């Protein structure tokens, strides 16, 4: 268990900046997930923490000690790689005990520590097998076991479940949560899968373009994103974004018109809206849009053309095209699609998130 502090960290490869101004504080025992699209710098950040990559500027501390120039093996971190990176010529036990062998520990100590890690991961029966004789899930457990025997201060996981099939991934996710509970260790996990991030994380770091977009609890990020990128990245299906013009601005309310190219105008409670902002993007999650019966038109309804429908049994997603060109996804629980070419979507203005044209969140003064 260890605390980890990253201050003003930056990394560039030649003229190309891949990470800039990263500031993070990770508490002891937290499970933190770095999430973002490919190339956002999350793996580079993890590799900098592990010591496999150097930073261009900034500072990394583990338990208060500066780690910038400390050898990877001396940092107290252990990493689980996406490809498992098991040594194919060694058995599972030898793989797990390799770091102890390098640390010149005695054979009985190595055996004991490997056996302990193996019992945590239910690998006892597989210790004498070579990686080629193990399934994907078993290999991943051996890779985790290799990390456990080192008793690191911080566990680092670099997309460890990407090579597994969907079912195994769900099972391994549960095992990782269980492992974190049992070891109580600080864990940092990199993934591009936001569902994986949401299910595992105590805290999430959403990254894009080498910049930390937001750091916080998963549901805080889901409910209260700082910007359009985080709003769009977290949640599946992703949040709907509808362009709108700002109409009447009053101290406690604001009226939005021409929503998504329709003539609909909606008034929503909002304190302290900046009158200089003339256009916004409304963010609204699919579950906050309802399908309205076609025979009873409401003031918050907008009409849209159905593009296609995903019927998953318990839930139906209707993808509709708005006159303004935006795609609106409506989540309908329990209701079945009747086959109509148009639908009426009922928006809940109380759930609107507003973003300015540069993608920054415009928060109501109520929120603070």
């Amino acid at each position, binding site marked *: 268990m260890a605390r980890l502090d990253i201050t003003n960290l930056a990394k560039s490869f030649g003229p190309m900046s891949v990470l800039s101004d990263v500031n993070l504080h990770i508490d002891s025992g937290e499970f933190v997930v770095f999430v973002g699209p490919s190339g956002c710098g999350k793996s580079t950040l993890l590799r900098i923490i*592990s*010591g*496999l990559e150097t930073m261009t500027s900034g500072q990394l501390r583990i338990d208060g000690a500066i780690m910038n120039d400390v050898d*990877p*093996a001396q940092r107290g*971190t*252990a*990493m689980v*790689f*996406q*490809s498992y*990176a*098991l*040594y*194919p*010529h060694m058995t599972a036990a030898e793989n797990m005990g*390799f*770091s102890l062998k*390098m*640390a010149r520990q005695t054979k009985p100590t190595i055996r004991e520590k490997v056996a302990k890690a193996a019992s945590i991961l239910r690998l006892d029966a597989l210790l004498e097998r070579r990686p080629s004789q193990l399934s994907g899930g078993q290999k991943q457990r051996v890779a985790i076991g*290799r990390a456990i025997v*080192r008793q690191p201060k911080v566990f680092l996981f670099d997309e460890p479940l990407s090579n597994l099939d969907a079912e195994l991934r769900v099972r391994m996710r549960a095992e990782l949560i269980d492992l974190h509970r049992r070891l109580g260790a600080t864990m940092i996990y990199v993934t591009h899968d936001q569902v994986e991030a949401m299910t595992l994380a105590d805290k999430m770091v959403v990254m894009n373009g080498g910049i930390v977009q937001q750091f916080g609890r998963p549901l805080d990020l889901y409910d209260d994103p700082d910007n359009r990128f985080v709003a769009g990245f977290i949640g599946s299906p992703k949040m709907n974004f509808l362009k709108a013009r700002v109409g009447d601005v009053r101290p406690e309310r604001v009226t939005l018109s021409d929503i998504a190219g329709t003539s609909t105008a909606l008034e929503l409670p909002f304190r302290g809206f900046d009158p200089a902002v003339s256009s916004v993007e409304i963010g609204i999650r699919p579950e906050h849009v309802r399908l309205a019966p076609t025979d009873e038109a409401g003031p918050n309804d907008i009409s849209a053309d159905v593009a296609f429908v995903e019927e998953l049994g318990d839930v139906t997603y209707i993808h509709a095209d708005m006159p303004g060109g935006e795609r609106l996804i409506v989540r309908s629980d329990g209701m079945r699609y009747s086959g109509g070419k148009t639908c009426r979507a009922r928006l809940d203005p109380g759930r609107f998130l507003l973003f300015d044209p540069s993608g920054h969140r415009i928060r109501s003064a109520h929120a603070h």
Partner: protein
Amino acid sequence: MTLALDAATPRRRRMASVTYWDVLKWVIALSVTVVILFPIWWMINVVFAEPGTPVSINPRLLPTSLEAGWSKILMILRETEYLRAYYISVAYALLTIIGVLAVGSMAAFEFALFDFPGKRPLFGLVMLSLMVPTAVTIVPTYLLVADMGWLNTMQGLVVPGMASAFGLFLLVQFMKGIPHEMIEAARLDGAGHFQIYWHVVMPLAKNALVTLAILTFMRTWGNFMWPLIVAPNAQMYTVGQVVGLFNAPYSHHTVDVVMTANLLAAVPPLIFFLIFQRKIVEGIAMSGTKG
């Protein structure tokens, strides 16, 4: 009845599927085999025959006297310096293999898995030496060895052959296939540079190392020119040179004795080939060369 029919049908089908092209391939393969094996078989026939039996006329297909053959072998081993030549050749081959593997694997480890200033031009320079024929380098190498006072010594035989550009190329190509994550995992596991080389990369490169060892053995055992130049002293003769003496125009040995010397020289590579048959084929396929 039904069973008999069932059993016969696939056989007929198999026979029917044999084409003229298949037959031609078999004929060609058999002819090549006969051409390759006949001299060896002829050599064995000549050795295992009574001394003085004419060899060029009245060809025999089977050895006529095992006893006579054995006595010729024993005579060569006891009355000539053949055993010493065996010892020199084996030592020359083994030390060269060890040297080539050690130097080649360490250099390949750096070239394949790490970056350092001047890596590409250096590797290019080494590869360029592959293009230079041995005959061009043999005189300067001889002068160097002579300057060092290594003429007629084992190090004079072995050391110049230890730096093998071909071996480096083979090992670099193989080591490039080792995932970088494995090296990083070893670094995180606390392995130092040499430990990564020894505990991770060397075991993973085992197949390439075995291939290189085999090719080096074949090259060294059959090397006639370099030992002839650098070790002219009879005390340092290799098997190749001794066989050369038997074959010399004024050697006064009869054909059967010369053939016995040839057979003795061919036995180690034959045994070696039988043991490592599969690996040799794989190795030649891997290296894309016949060594």
